[in-house]
């Protein structure tokens, strides 16, 4: 049937000449369609191109025929063949008088060349002329071409006409003029900035199409500078309202939605304008609510609008009602069967959790499903979401998952991204240094060459400096575990070179430190690394030699990167030998080590040669000499670099006295003009005789002048003042090139400043996470015992602490971090079991904590823990507790709360005796007058029993989790048995991920 139709069409076209195409073209297309191989297709096209070349050059070809030839040329280029010989003909055709030919010309030119092509100059004149044409179709064609072909240089030539066209009687022309102006703005904002007000005017255009088009440039402008467009908020809201109320002509309807594309654009604009602006956001709530109400979740376009609404709501000043609607829609997306909607839902969720992290917990299942989905795109999006919601409590699970995923992808771009995300999360949230090192090892092993080299430096530093505490034992333990892991890994083939460098360095520094491995063993390993790496890369170099392009350069590049790992290896060997000698042990030179040294001392690289010779020289030294040359464990000592080379001053002085001429820095020498040194050049204008191209600038502070003058009068110090300004100059004017002499110091200046990351590891509080969770969970207990109020109060504090957590990257006290982390933990658990078990779950963490942490550190005072303005009841409860029971056991505090009469029997709980204690509880209920607090305190026992059950059930469920329906049903059944709501049928996983 299909075939029949095809044949019919072909026949029809053949007879009509297929919209004016000739038989030749039809044959060409047909033969290409029938080509059985790429080579055959290439042959056909090559023949066609030959033919076209001949015909196009032929002056006798009629113009209408030319048009067709040009289209065939476009076709050939579309299939990936070079047809540059015909570009000039396309340009010629734009000059043609008749519109059809002109249009074809413009079309071909716009497809063939872009604004940076040389031929554009020839087209600009035509465009200029056509913009003045009386025929609006000609103008349209010219404007379309202008969008593509007019670059920054040609812009002034057409700009005035385009602006004139903004008032053209035909709406099609106005619209295109707006878009062209927008394009010009994108290309070069400065040359169009004075015309920006035109966009505002066009917003009031009678034609909805023009108005819709104007929204594009306005969106860009508003993104740039929202504050100067705040006055338009009301107009935008009005337009949106009118559109949503179907005031536009029905021709703008799309699938029964009123002008959806305009709505989406408006929503985007409102999102920018309302962000962080309460007043502006206030105008928007009504119309957003309307759109939500009218939202159509059955059609794709309806969902597109709803999604844009969610984006808008998550960006503007939050409004609880709106957020609720957005969350509802998001959950609809997530529950949908369509992958597209799930994808949008995950994205929307990522936006909403920025405002209210609780929303995520409701959708744990959906998120986990998406993470395990076979669809790669969806998976990536979910990882993005996880990345956004990572906290110190769930970082291990998330990063492990990410790495697992990272190993299996081949896409370079995405691998780099996910590797850097892993590193970022690990650096930010790592629960322990041990874990950090292991994680880093994995990242380096699988994506070593893709991560920033700074990460490697940080890792080495961490190993060298340890926790930053005075605990040497832990540090050395860390190091030896690192050494262990590296010795395990080092034999594996194809390790990335940056990882090998870390391994070499660590082995060299600490390989023999704890005495478990002999020096010769480690040296042997290092020799293997050096050898393997050398041969490995030599092979690579050879293969690249076959690639003929600028081989010499590449060879140099390869050499430098190959040898670098070697340098690490040999330095490491050097260090080990030095340590051994310093300890007074005799060192035997292994044969492979000897060969390596011999090989390297004949190396092409002077660097390697020097290292090899140094090693040989070191072997001949005695113990004391070695100790002073290479002090043991000196890696953490700072190196002082005398940038001013002041130790040379005496020498310089001497030389000057004996008649040498003083040094003049390169930048001050006459005739030398470099952009980077124009500042100092200004001070020596008389000596610089060359032309200056830049405008005069404001006079600089007089200090540099003074120093410069000083340098003239006191030649001994001339090195000092000149190198200093150069060094700072680099900081402020990094874009400028600079005299080569300063480049090194400048670069170090920049590099050194990047070390901020390290600080995290210096903080002593980081490693001890267990006491923190016990203290704050204790707070959660208090909240829980305070009956119903607890739920809302804790969510309140959670919100405020969440805000603080966002900036945690920079400087937030560790106290707050802890609070945030542990509060999230309890809240996530709460969401799992919903309303019935909110207090129960609050108990979960104290119980489990209690098992492990018997004597925690005294809890910090509550005012510190709860920032901003926490609800008073929490405070009232908290303060007396912490003062009366400084022993910090959460349950002894509860005892205090219960009062002397009933305290002791209840709270001395072991999970096993729960059932036997139930009567006791009842007695408390009946006897005690203080029902409020006591009911809170009884909960732990009750909660404990059901909690145990639920956990048991949960693990059973988790192990059974499978794709089939039967499994799912079974799962649900078990879940119900143990009293867990079916939504949480994989609680263990969620606890890790979301808790």
């Amino acid at each position: 049937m299909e075939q029949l139709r095809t044949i019919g069409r072909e026949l029809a076209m053949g007879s009509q000449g297929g919209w004016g195409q000739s038989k030749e073209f039809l044959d060409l297309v047909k033969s290409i369609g029938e080509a059985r191989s790429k080579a055959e297709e290439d042959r056909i096209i090559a023949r066609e191109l030959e033919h076209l070349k001949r015909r196009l050059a032929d002056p006798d070809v009629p113009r209408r025929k030319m048009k067709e030839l040009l289209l065939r040329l476009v076709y050939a280029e579309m299939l990936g063949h070079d047809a540059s010989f015909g570009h000039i003909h396309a340009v010629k055709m734009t000059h043609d008088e008749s519109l059809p030919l002109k249009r074809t010309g413009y079309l071909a030119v716009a497809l063939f060349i872009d604004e940076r092509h040389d031929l554009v100059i020839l087209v600009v004149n035509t465009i200029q002329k056509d913009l003045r044409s009386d025929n609006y179709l000609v103008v349209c064609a010219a404007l379309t071409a202008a969008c593509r072909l007019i670059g920054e240089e040609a812009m002034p030539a057409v700009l005035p006409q385009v602006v004139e066209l903004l008032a053209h009687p035909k709406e099609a022309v106005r619209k295109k003029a707006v878009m062209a102006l927008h394009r010009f703005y994108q290309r070069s904002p400065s040359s169009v900035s004075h015309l920006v007000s035109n966009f505002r005017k066009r917003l009031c255009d009678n034609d909805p199409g023009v108005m819709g088009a104007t929204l594009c440039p306005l969106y860009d402008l508003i993104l740039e500078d929202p504050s100067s467009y705040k006055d338009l908020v009301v107009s935008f809201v009005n337009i949106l309202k009118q559109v949503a109320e179907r005031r536009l002509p029905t021709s703008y309807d799309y699938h029964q939605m009123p002008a959806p594309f305009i709505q989406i654009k408006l929503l985007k604009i409102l999102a920018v304008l309302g962000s962080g602006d309460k007043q502006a956001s206030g105008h928007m709530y009504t119309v957003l609510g309307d759109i939500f109400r009218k939202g159509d979740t059955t059609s794709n376009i309806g969902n597109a609008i709803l999604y844009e609404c969610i984006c808008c709501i998550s960006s503007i000043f939050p409004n609880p009602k709106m957020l609720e609607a957005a969350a509802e829609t998001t959950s609809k997306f997530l529950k949908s069967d369509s992958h597209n909607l799930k994808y949008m839902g995950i994205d929307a969720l990522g936006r909403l959790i920025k405002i209210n992290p609780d929303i995520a917990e409701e959708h744990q299942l959906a998120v986990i499903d998406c993470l395990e989905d076979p669809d790669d795109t969806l998976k990536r999006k979910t990882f993005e979401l996880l990345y956004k919601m990572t906290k110190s409590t769930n970082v291990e699970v998330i990063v492990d998952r990410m790495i697992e995923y990272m190993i299996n992808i081949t896409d370079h771009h995405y691998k780099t991204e996910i590797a850097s995300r892993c590193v970022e999360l690990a650096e930010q949230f790592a629960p322990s240094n041990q874990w950090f090192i292991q994680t880093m090892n994995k990242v380096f092993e699988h994506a070593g060459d893709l991560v920033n080299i700074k990460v490697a430096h940080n890792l080495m530093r961490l190993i060298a400096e340890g926790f930053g505490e005075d605990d040497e034992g832990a540090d050395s333990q860390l190091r030896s575990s690192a050494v262990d892991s590296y010795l395990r890994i080092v034999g594996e083939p194809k390790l990335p070179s940056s990882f090998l460098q870390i391994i070499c360095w660590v082995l060299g520094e600490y390989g023999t430190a704890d005495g478990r491995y002999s020096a010769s063993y480690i040296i042997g390993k290092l020799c293997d690394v050096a050898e393997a790496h050398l041969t490995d890369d030599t092979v690579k170099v050879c293969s690249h030699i076959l690639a003929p392009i600028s081989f010499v350069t590449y060879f140099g590049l390869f050499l430098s990167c190959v040898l670098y790992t070697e340098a690490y290896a040999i330095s490491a060997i050097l260090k080990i030998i030095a340590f051994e000698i310093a300890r007074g042990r005799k060192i035997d030179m292994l044969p492979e080590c000897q060969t390596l040294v011999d090989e390297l001392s004949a190396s092409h690289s002077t660097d390697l040669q020097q290292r090899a010779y140094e090693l040989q020289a070191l072997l001949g030294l005695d113990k004391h000499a070695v100790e002073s040359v290479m002090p043991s464990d000196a890696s953490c000592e700072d190196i002082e670099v005398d940038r001013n080379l002041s130790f040379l001053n005496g020498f310089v002085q001497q030389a000057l006295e004996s008649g040498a001429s003083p040094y003049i820095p390169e930048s001050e020498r006459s005739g030398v003009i470099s952009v980077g040194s124009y500042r100092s050049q200004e001070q020596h204008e008389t000596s610089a005789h060359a032309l200056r191209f830049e405008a005069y600038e404001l006079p600089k502070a007089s200090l540099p002048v003074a120093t410069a003058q000083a340098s003239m009068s006191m030649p001994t110090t001339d090195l000092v003042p000149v190198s200093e300004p150069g060094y700072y100059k680099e900081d402020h004017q990094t874009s400028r090139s600079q005299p080569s002499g300063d480049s090194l110091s400048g670069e170090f200046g920049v590099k050194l400043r990047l070390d901020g990351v390290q600080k995290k590891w210096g903080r002593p509080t980081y490693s001890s996470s267990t006491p923190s969770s016990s203290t704050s969970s204790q707070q959660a207990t208090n909240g829980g015992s305070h009956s119903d109020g607890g739920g809302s109060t804790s969510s309140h504090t959670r919100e405020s602490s969440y805000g603080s957590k966002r900036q945690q990257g920079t400087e937030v006290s560790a106290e707050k971090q802890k609070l945030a982390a542990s509060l999230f933990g309890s809240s996530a658990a709460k969401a799992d079991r919903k309303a019935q078990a909110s207090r129960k779950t609050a108990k979960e963490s104290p119980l489990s904590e209690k098992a492990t942490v018997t004597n925690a550190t005294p809890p910090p005072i509550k005012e510190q823990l709860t920032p901003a303005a926490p609800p008073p009841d929490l405070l009232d409860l908290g303060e007396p507790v912490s003062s009366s029971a400084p022993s910090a056991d959460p349950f002894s505090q509860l005892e205090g709360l219960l009062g002397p009469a009933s305290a002791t029997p209840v709270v001395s709980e072991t999970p096993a005796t729960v059932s036997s204690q139930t009567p006791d509880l009842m007695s408390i209920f009946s006897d005690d007058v203080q029902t409020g607090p006591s009911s809170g305190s009884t909960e732990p026992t009750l909660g404990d029993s059901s909690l145990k059950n639920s956990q048991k059930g949960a693990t059973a469920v988790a192990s059974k989790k499978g794709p089939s329906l039967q499994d799912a049903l079974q799962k649900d059944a078990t879940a119900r048995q143990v009293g867990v709501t079916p939504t949480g049928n994989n609680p263990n996983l969620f606890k890790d991920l979301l808790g």
Partner: protein
Amino acid sequence: MINFVLLISRQGKVRLTKWYSPYTQKERTKRLGTKEGEKDIYRMARIRERKTRDINPNQMYQGWGRPTPDAFVRRIQETEIEEALKRMKSGKAMGPDGIPIEVIRELSGLILTRGPKLCNFVEWRGYKVVYRRYASLYFCMCVDADDNELEILEIIHHFVEILDRYFGSVCELDLIFNFHKAYYILDEILIAGELQESSKKNVARLIAAQDSLVEAAKEEASSISNIIAQATK
């Protein structure tokens, strides 16, 4: 913003390409492919070489133990060179409209292999490619990372609906033989990477106006040729 539009058949044949942003990878591809690019590589190499020569002796040996950040001269990584090589090679095989053939090949490999039920979005080199399949044709649009994918999906459909209305139940052959018409229609819908007209009626009216001009020209031409033919009889 839409960076480019691409129509490919299920066999990976290109049916239409339109490139809107000249400042994406094309820039880099071109630069390294030209003489200039080669010069860049030389310069890069020189700088690296100088660095290794100057810094290592001074810095590496001052503190024996510790590799300070100073001491780590950033090496050229192999991947970097491989990439450069790849770019230089691919620069020679520039495709239509400046889109390297590689891009099209890569994308078609990515999209054509996707299963039917998966989502219509692919993340690619920091962009997102939204595609939709109609019979044997895939319509792809490459957009920025922050664009609304569902909207783009509907823009594609909008385009297809207009094509459908114009050709009368459009099929792949229409687009093969009349690709220039498809280009004209696309130009009326998208301009400079943005949707310029969301009313089907307006687009249809404009296209019709242009076509009537063509028809007029054709008639004129044929009448002239008739006259000539009669005159020469």
